[in-house]
């Protein structure tokens, strides 16, 4: 399949983040920092309530790469992001991306970002992918 510079990826919208999901993610990931689980702790850290794990949104970003470039056909060589804005329970996160550059070895550099329901970028990042063929 051919790709063009700036070609947008199919966006991937996730259901609203729930506190139950944060508890499940804390168990699955091993990140049980109380800032994600305990409102009182989060408030003492200056937030109105618990905040979602940034790595949960990065997982959505990785899932968007898989959505567009199935892991049966492509390998991800690198995946990176900056956490730009905090995400709260109830927020709806959609992962986006586009083709930034096309390399002579067939690999692609992708620009990636996640947005909340207000259209604010919560993460910004990049990935490099290459076809398994």
């Amino acid at each position, binding site marked *: 399949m051919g790709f063009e510079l700036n070609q947008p990826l199919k966006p991937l919208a996730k259901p609203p983040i729930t506190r139950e999901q944060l508890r499940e993610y804390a168990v699955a990931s091993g990140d049980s920092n109380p800032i994600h689980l305990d409102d009182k*702790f989060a408030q003492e850290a200056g937030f109105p309530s618990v905040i979602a794990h940034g790595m949960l949104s990065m997982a959505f970003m990785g899932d968007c790469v898989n959505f567009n470039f199935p892991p049966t056909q492509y390998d991800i060589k690198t995946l990176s992001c*900056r956490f730009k804005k905090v995400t709260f329970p109830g927020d709806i996160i959609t992962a986006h991306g586009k083709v930034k550059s096309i390399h002579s070895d067939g690999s692609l550099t992708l620009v990636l970002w996640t947005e909340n329901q207000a259209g604010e970028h919560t993460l910004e990042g990049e990935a490099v992918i290459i076809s398994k063929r």
Partner: protein
Amino acid sequence: MLIDLNGDLTPICFKVGPMGKARFEEFNRAINALYASGAAPTFATTFRKGEFDFLDKLKVNLKTLLHTEQEYQFVTPFQEGDHLEIETKLASVKQRRGMAFVSLESEVKAANDLRLRSISTFVLRETARG
């Protein structure tokens, strides 16, 4: 004090395994992954024990901590049955104007075969946010 650099700064090493389908699937459920099987791109976040233990060695107050950047460099894919060895080390520390910037680097290997490298960067602030 945001961070204590006078203590033990040696890398933290630990082992995980064997890797099985159930571990991948548990993580995939937690992120509502499109693909139910196999290791998701950020599955390696399940090996952040070394980071949390290192932050503990640095006497970091979690209320002052923000994870600001994350990078994964993938070398070879995880395999079911992998017995993994993870080494987490302090890659860099910078302190200025009431903040500290800490990068921790982890290498995940199976039988000395590098699976991936992970670099996590955190900011610590003098006071809690707000």
